[in-house]
């Protein structure tokens, strides 16, 4: 029996209704004559405080509020990939169609009260019984448990969608559908649970605020290769890891996140635009279908789900969008995929929390944020991880979470940044000064960190080169030393430095120009494969090592630069001048540089 009450108060996105006895905390409700979506966030006596996910303009006291009996949930099943949803999982293109039917000239606007299902009810999918990898097929009479693979659907050219027994269903399989075309609502299996027969469909619902279950959580061990040199080589992300990317406006958060979504070696990417610009979501929508997934050569949209709750869309739905996104991520993880979840920006989500808390007249903590900000952030990042999924056959999947943070005034000591730092293990700090000089990605190498360097070392040593760590650490040392030297340079200038310190500046400049700077819009430079990253770094560090030997023998940096001549520029430009399939040219260039230095050595005697 659903609860039915009446509105008594409206204040922005907050609505208070009376006569709501029996309503559950976080139950989804329908508000007003138009049935706007809302969620109960506080109950007092028979009054329910409801955050409404659509504009409340024009609502009046006395209008009805109806409970749905269930918490806010998402629909899980084939048809999610390639779609763009709003913050409560309504497909945006469908919203436009529904509005256009009523008022064609209003098509481009989002009006409220539009009720559309997340998954297409008409579309037929070819269901294949059995597990796609092992071919194992459960037979009638078998005992099935949550997560067991019943069959599969080719959802997109990249992703085979596994149809699994939903969580909470344990029983005896009575019947499994034969290969054929079914809608997401058709029954494809019947399971006897405690003497009752339950139909299993390709679609099921899951409450967004509840993490989906798994067998065990494992330590991350493999890097999530992104093709961005400063990330992969210096501050690597691991599959199942967590990271934050804070930065003031204009420092390139969104470009970096788009690059991650475009290039990283994840099987499924979920991109949440949470309180950000409309055009940025449009950019993804327009650009991604033109690009191919670098790992499979298939259209990029075939592995992507977009969730857009832009800054001008209702603020409460912003709060929900993060949970909607992570629940979808967990669903694909349960199929055994490596999923990357990108949230841009968690600060806007935190502001939504603050706004709702303010309307509820809760006691504010730091800067007006509610006191539970830290625990909400922790809960969210804790939903990342590499896990052994429920059910058989056995499979490993992961959810990697990267959240952008938009600190006011670029100040990293503000509450959202400082709390986030406690729950993440990779910190890519964007630097306004680097951005001003168009050094992109503007990740500051002095204050950024990754706790996964040791974990991913093995992978690099096995798959790329066993000297990876030593080169990486030496480059890092040069950069650190340069930072110290710059303090001195600011007082005395460069000319009075010792030659070996001048060489540090020279090498650091080469690392910055030839390695760290990366142009996300250059066809060659945008994606740097791990082998190229290693070879570029090897070339620069070998140059430095040899030059250093010469300096110790009395050569000056000016002599070294003269001996190397134009090759120095070639080294700096190798990242975009040398195509990714001609890595031998980097070795060639390295040999030429070393030879030039050797002939200088010979001349010096």
């Amino acid at each position, binding site marked *: 029996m659903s609860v039915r009450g009446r509105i*008594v108060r409206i204040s922005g996105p907050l609505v208070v209704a009376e006569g709501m006895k029996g309503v559950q905390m976080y139950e989804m409700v329908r508000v007003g004559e138009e049935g706007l979506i809302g969620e109960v966030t506080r109950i007092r006596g028979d009054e329910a405080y409801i955050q409404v996910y659509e504009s409340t303009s024009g609502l009046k006291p006395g209008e009805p509020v109806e409970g749905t009996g269930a918490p806010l949930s998402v629909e899980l099943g084939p048809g999610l990939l390639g779609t763009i949803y709003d913050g409560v999982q309504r497909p945006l293109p469908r919203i436009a169609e529904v509005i256009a039917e009523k008022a064609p000239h209003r098509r481009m606007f989002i009006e409220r009260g539009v009720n559309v299902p997340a998954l297409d009810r008409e579309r037929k999918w070819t269901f294949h019984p059995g597990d796609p990898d092992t071919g194992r097929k459960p037979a009638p009479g078998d005992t099935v448990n949550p997560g067991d693979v019943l069959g599969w659907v080719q959802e997109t050219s990249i992703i085979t969608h596994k149809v699994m027994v939903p969580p909470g269903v344990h029983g005896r399989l009575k019947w499994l559908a034969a290969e054929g075309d079914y809608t997401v609502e058709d029954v494809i299996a019947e399971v006897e649970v405690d003497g009752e027969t339950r139909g299993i469909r390709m679609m099921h619902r899951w409450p967004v605020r509840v993490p989906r279950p798994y067998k065990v959580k494992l330590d991350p061990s493999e890097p999530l290769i992104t093709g961005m040199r400063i990330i992969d080589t210096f501050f690597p992300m691991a599959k199942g890891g967590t990271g934050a990317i804070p930065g003031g406006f204009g420092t390139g958060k969104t470009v970096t996140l788009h690059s991650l979504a475009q290039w990283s070696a994840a099987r499924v990417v979920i991109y949440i635009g949470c309180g950000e610009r409309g055009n940025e979501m449009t950019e993804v929508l327009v650009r991604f279908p033109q690009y191919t997934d670098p790992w499979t050569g298939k259209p990029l949209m075939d592995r992507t789900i977009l969730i857009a709750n832009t800054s001008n*869309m209702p603020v409460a739905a912003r709060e929900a969008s993060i949970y909607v996104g992570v629940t979808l991520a967990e669903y694909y993880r349960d199929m055994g995929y490596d999923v990357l979840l990108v949230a841009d920006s968690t600060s806007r989500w935190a502001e939504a929390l603050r706004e709702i808390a303010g309307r509820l007249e809760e006691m504010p903590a730091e800067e007006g944020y509610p006191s539970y900000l830290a625990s909400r952030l922790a809960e969210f990042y804790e939903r990342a991880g590499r896990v052994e999924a429920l059910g058989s056959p056995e499979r490993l999947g992961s959810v990697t979470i990267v959240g952008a943070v*938009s600190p006011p005034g670029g100040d990293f000591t503000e509450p959202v940044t400082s709390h986030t730092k406690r729950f993440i293990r990779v910190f890519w700090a964007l630097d306004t000064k680097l951005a001003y000089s168009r050094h992109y990605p503007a990740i500051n190498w002095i204050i950024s960190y990754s706790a996964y360097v040791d974990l991913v070392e093995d992978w690099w040593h096995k798959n790329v080169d066993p000297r990876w760590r030593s080169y990486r650490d030496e480059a890092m040392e040069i950069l650190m030393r340069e930072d110290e030297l710059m303090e001195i340079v600011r007082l005395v200038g460069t000319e009075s430095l010792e030659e070996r310190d001048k060489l540090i500046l020279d090498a650091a400049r080469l690392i910055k120009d030839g390695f760290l700077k990366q142009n996300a819009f250059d066809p060659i430079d945008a994606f740097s494969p791990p082998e190229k990253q290693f070879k570029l770094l090897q070339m620069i560090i070998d140059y430095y090592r040899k030059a250093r030997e010469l300096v110790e023998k009395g050569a000056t940096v000016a002599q070294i630069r003269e001996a190397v001549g134009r090759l120095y520029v070639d080294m700096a430009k190798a990242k975009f*001048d040398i195509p990714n399939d001609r890595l031998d040219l980097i070795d060639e260039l390295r040999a030429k540089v070393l030879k030039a230095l050797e002939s200088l050595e010979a001349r010096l005697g």
Partner: protein
Amino acid sequence: MLGVREYTRVTEIKGPLLIVEGVSRVAYDEIVEVELPTGEKRRGRVLEVNRNIAVVQVFEGTTGITTTGTKVRFLGKPLEIPVSEDMLGRVFNGLGEPIDGGPPVEAEERRDVNGAPLNPAERDYPEDFIQTGVSAIDGMNTLVRGQKLPIFSGSGLPHNVLAAQIARQATVRGEAEEFAVVFAAIGIKYDDYLFFRKFFEETGALNKVAMFVNLADEPAMIRLITPRAALTLAEYLAYERDMHVLVILTDMTNYAEALREISAAREEVPGRQGYPGYLYSDLASIYERAGRVKGKKGSITQMPILTMPNDDITHPIPDLTGYITEGQIVLSRDLHNRGIYPPINVLMSLSRLMKEGIGPGKTREDHAAVSNQLYAAYSRGVELRSLAAVVGEESLSKVDRLYLKFADEFERRFLSQGTRENRSIEETLDLAWEVLSILPEEELTNIKEELIRKYHPKYRMQAQAGAQQA
């Protein structure tokens, strides 16, 4: 919605707010007419309803309102303005009513000033290069049609002159069509208003301009409506009448202050510097009303102007604006004091949509690389300039001294131009190459070899000499 209902139980008046009791079926955000005992009428809107109590914000202020004899009429609809193509060439007050003595607007349609959010799936990505004729913008912070690009200024800086120059010179190459301009004056001084008015008159553009004017001495609460009224017209012109509309909103700082005032009167929990916690969302509901949509010819390009209090870019107003808009043009007091016009601090400026609007077929193939190189070289030059101030120029290396020279020439020749000087993009890029050629060629690490060979003045001269010999 319901029809008009009238109530008289005003129980409290504080700041711009009226508390009206005993009301029934009042809608959130509904528009209100307040009639004073003198017969004077003012407008307001419902900010909150709690059972039979309504909180009403009065746009024209509460001065002179009494708790007895005041009639409050709830009009049963949100604030709407009439929209029509005939509004171009007219002047309106901050609520969209004509104040130029002309006839009332023949409405083709009435629209809610709050608008509705654009569906991201129905947007089209902006990518048409707008040539403004200003090198610092076209060369390094390119504007595209459908972008929202604010000018961050300070008091006394020439933002008005720059905005006017852009409005006059902006063209999309290969198209004869001019922009229609919707101009919203939000709490600005009369002489600022006069400057723009004269400027539109002089350029003969007045019949392509609609002005919504709320001056500094007019009620502050109206400022919350003015930009919305202007954008409501802009949306109509762009998406129903296929026009390319340039919207100038000045000064957004006055808008944010009006918002703070109403928030304080409601005793809300303040965010940073007393501004409400929802300042970001509220500003976004204005700035996001720009762009292009699928299947429509028209577009809205937004150029908000704001003065940064104490020239501080980390102040909440410029800070939150920068997080919403697609870049920013930052004016510098230092450059202005050195007599450089336009005093654009290019290092702090940014156009996020630049990459889509430039390149072969749009501007020129070397545009992106040249722009990157200018940024890298100028930032190094500026850094070295402050270093040279401490250690002296002679402690710098020979190359570093060239960077100093580059920075000076960049400001003197590339940045600086006349208020009526309209440079084509080719002129801008060639000028960039000229100043870049001060640096040794090996310093141009951001530009691919083939582009250097094609555009560097040295090779161009060689090519010319070669052609002459042949």
